[in-house]
């Protein structure tokens, strides 16, 4: 028996000794909630060994305090009342672990997002805080030590998407000796990057970077590559996916190959915003193109000093920022799903500045105008492009987001087009710029991922991109364990960010595989064989088909691996023969009772 196990055994027998730690959150909480008074009142409740406060409970000294008290007061249960558990529940579970206490003897009470930030009245906020902590005490008295689940991982990975992100992830995995299956829907590897020429901030030729990567991927025996390939079926869960891939040849439906993998990396990327017919003259005037059209133009090295497009000489170029990004209701028309892109696409500012400089470098006499809302050149080496462009004489017009510029034919016919806008830099003066070429800095948006979303039950954000478990704590993981986010399926990214994300996803996946198993939260459902009648009601409610019936014993069995711990079966069982670990009836009920101020009846312990 390990030390931890012995400790757990002891805890089961002990009367609860609860420590309550209330966080000021540097005033975020304590400015509204009288935390000292709360600590005092809570301190009077039965089984509470200590009740105290700290300026920042999540800080090292804060966590130090908890560890110290666990030892000093022999605590066997810990409650932290602070911010939302989504931020620091894990942090504090680890704190308990370090103090030799089972991390699931912990309860996190949310008194910031759900009290101090939403209740003005100090008295009411303080009372509410006390109630919530009292409820936590009711619940925690019944908590028992839990162990994480360990699930074996089949040492192979599937990477979906053959763009630079997918390639990177696949390459990194292969380098660690892991079998990879890489599938690309399109006809070539390299994705959108393959269309680009010089790329910021390094000014390399996109394909100089891409080619070796692709060769490396194709060369290694560890990677099976399929183009024109799409997932047909996917069975199983983390550690053990069985996937049928349909590999076509130039669109024609081809044969089905199978892949048995332990993890999946989604590197399916995104799509460009497609301006509507007539949006900023798109489709009406041949002189209106997108930033990526321009990039493709610039790939072709043109001889001579004259910049021409389809044979026409170009003198005045106008760039429009935020086309299909940072849209506003009422100003911009919603897309097919009735949604607008209200987010920033992040690559376009630098992208436009970069193209402007590129043009200036090649054709110094060009007049270049940029119509922008804000310049967001936030990345390393990005701001430099703005400075450079300014020096090179690119002229900047700052439009009002609610009155974006308009592109029209030049009535006087001196130049094919006019771009008109108000300029907030010059007290909203009306400006009118002649243009031979109008370049729309189009944004990026999520592509239709409905099939994958159904297959892997991904959560989707309001912006229609996939949602990670937590942006800071688990940035490249999907809530559905075993599936990782490798790049811009998660949101607009430039190449640098996408490859970084892919690399991160790659190493997460590799770590999981080399570990050979994963730990998963223990909150799964368990059947009490003495009470279970095998009435099959739970079978029909499980979203994951994790429950089957043992015809021999005539009872229900729950697969630890398939169960994700939603607890639906527990709520449906008419005999309460199914209990969800961490949320069993005793725990949740006494939480309710304590919340309502009903004193604990039945003794806890043993």
């Amino acid at each position, binding site marked *: 028996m390990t030390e931890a196990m012995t400790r757990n055994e002891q805890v089961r027998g002990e009367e609860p000794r609860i420590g309550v730690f209330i966080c000021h959150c540097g005033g975020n909480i304590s400015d509204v909630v009288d935390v000292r008074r709360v600590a005092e009142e809570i301190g009077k409740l039965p089984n509470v060994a200590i009740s105290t406060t700290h300026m920042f409970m999540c800080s090292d000294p804060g966590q130090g305090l908890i560890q110290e008290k666990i030892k000093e007061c022999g605590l066997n249960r810990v409650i932290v009342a602070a911010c*939302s*558990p*989504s931020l620091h529940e894990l942090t504090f579970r680890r704190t308990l672990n370090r103090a030799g206490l089972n991390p699931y003897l912990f309860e996190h009470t*949310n008194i*910031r*997002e*759900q*009290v101090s*930030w*939403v*209740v*003005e*009245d100090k008295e*009411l*906020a303080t*009372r*509410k805080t006390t*109630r*919530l902590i009292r*409820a936590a005490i009711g619940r925690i008295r019944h908590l028992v030590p839990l162990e994480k689940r360990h699930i074996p991982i089949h040492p192979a990975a599937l990477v979906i998407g053959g763009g630079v992100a997918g390639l990177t992830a696949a390459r990194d995995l292969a380098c660690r000796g892991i079998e990879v299956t890489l599938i690309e829907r399109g006809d070539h590897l390299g994705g959108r990057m393959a269309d680009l020429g010089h790329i910021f901030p390094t000014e390399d030729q996109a394909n100089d970077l891409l080619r070796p990567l692709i060769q490396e991927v194709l060369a290694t025996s560890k990677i099976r590559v399929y183009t024109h390939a799409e997932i047909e079926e996917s069975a199983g869960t983390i550690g053990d996916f069985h996937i049928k891939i349909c590999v076509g040849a130039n669109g024609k439906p081809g044969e089905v190959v199978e892949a048995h993998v332990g993890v999946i990396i989604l590197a399916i990327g995104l799509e460009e915003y497609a301006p509507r017919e007539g949006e900023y003259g798109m489709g009406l005037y041949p002189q209106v193109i997108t930033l990526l059209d321009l990039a493709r133009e610039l790939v072709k090295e043109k001889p001579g000093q004259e910049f021409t497009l389809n044979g026409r000489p170009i003198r005045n170029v106008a760039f429009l920022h935020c086309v299909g990004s940072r849209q506003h209701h009422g100003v911009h028309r919603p897309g097919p799903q009735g949604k607008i892109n209200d987010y920033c696409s992040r690559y376009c500012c630098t992208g436009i500045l970069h193209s402007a400089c590129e043009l200036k470098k090649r054709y110094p006499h060009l007049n270049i105008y940029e119509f922008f809302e804000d310049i967001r050149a936030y990345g390393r080496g990005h701001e430099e492009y703005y400075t450079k462009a300014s020096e090179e004489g690119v002229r900047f017009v700052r439009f009002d987001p609610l009155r974006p510029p308009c592109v029209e034919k030049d009535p006087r016919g001196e130049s094919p087009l006019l771009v008109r806008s108000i300029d907030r830099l010059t007290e909203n003066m009306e400006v009118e710029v002649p243009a031979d070429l109008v370049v729309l800095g189009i944004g990026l948006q999520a592509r239709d991922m409905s099939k994958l979303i159904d297959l892997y*039950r991904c*959560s*989707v*954000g*309001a912006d229609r991109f996939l949602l990670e478990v937590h942006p800071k704590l688990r940035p490249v993981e999907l*809530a559905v364990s075993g599936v990782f986010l490798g790049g811009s399926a998660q949101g607009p990214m430039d190449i640098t960010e996408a490859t970084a994300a892919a690399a991160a996803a790659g190493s997460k996946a590799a770590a999981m595989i080399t570990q050979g198993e994963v730990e998963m939260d223990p*909150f799964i459902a368990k059947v009490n064989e003495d009470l279970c009648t095998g009435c099959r009601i739970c079978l029909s*409610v499980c*979203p*994951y088909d994790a429950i089957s019936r043992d015809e021999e014993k005539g009872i229900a069995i729950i697969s630890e691996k398939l169960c*994700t*711990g*939603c*607890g*639906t079966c*527990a*709520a*449906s069982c008419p005999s*309460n023969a199914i209990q*969800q670990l961490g*949320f069993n*009836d005793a725990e*949740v*009920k006494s*939480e*309710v*009772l304590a*919340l*309502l*101020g*009903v004193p604990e009846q039945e003794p806890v312990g043993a």
Partner: protein
Amino acid sequence: MEQGRTETAKPEVAEGWEPRIVGFLCYWCSYTGADGAGTARIQYAPNVDIIKVMCSGRIDPELVSTAFAHGADGVMVCGCHIGDCHYINGNHKTMARMPLLKRLLADLGIEPERFRHEWVSAAEGQKFAQLVTEMTEQVRKLGPLNWPGIMHSRGVGHGQDLRPWGE
């Protein structure tokens, strides 16, 4: 179903009485939505105390009647919208339970306004705040439910100090 003459006489509302509402929220959508309301500093009534479960599918009707039986003036059940349940369709099971639960509670004389079932997504902090304030006011209008009081007055659980009917 007839109304009793003694028992359902509305208890006079005590000084400083505040509605006590228990909110059962699923973690991934509604609870996160409530956090969102906080992050956005949206102020709302403090009367709904939240109990977190992983999925609204876990919300056993037994928990709802337990809350009422022990002094809740109202109960609120929130889960992900149909279609974006973190557990695929756990919330469908919640949805299927509600009509029968509502009916049972109504048959036992608990006003429909005291029990609410709503879908609140992780992005709908605003909606959550509104729901809470709205329901708090509805329950305030109804006054205390005071189930423990009613049952006590009928001698439930303590035969000793029973007050027989007719005296």
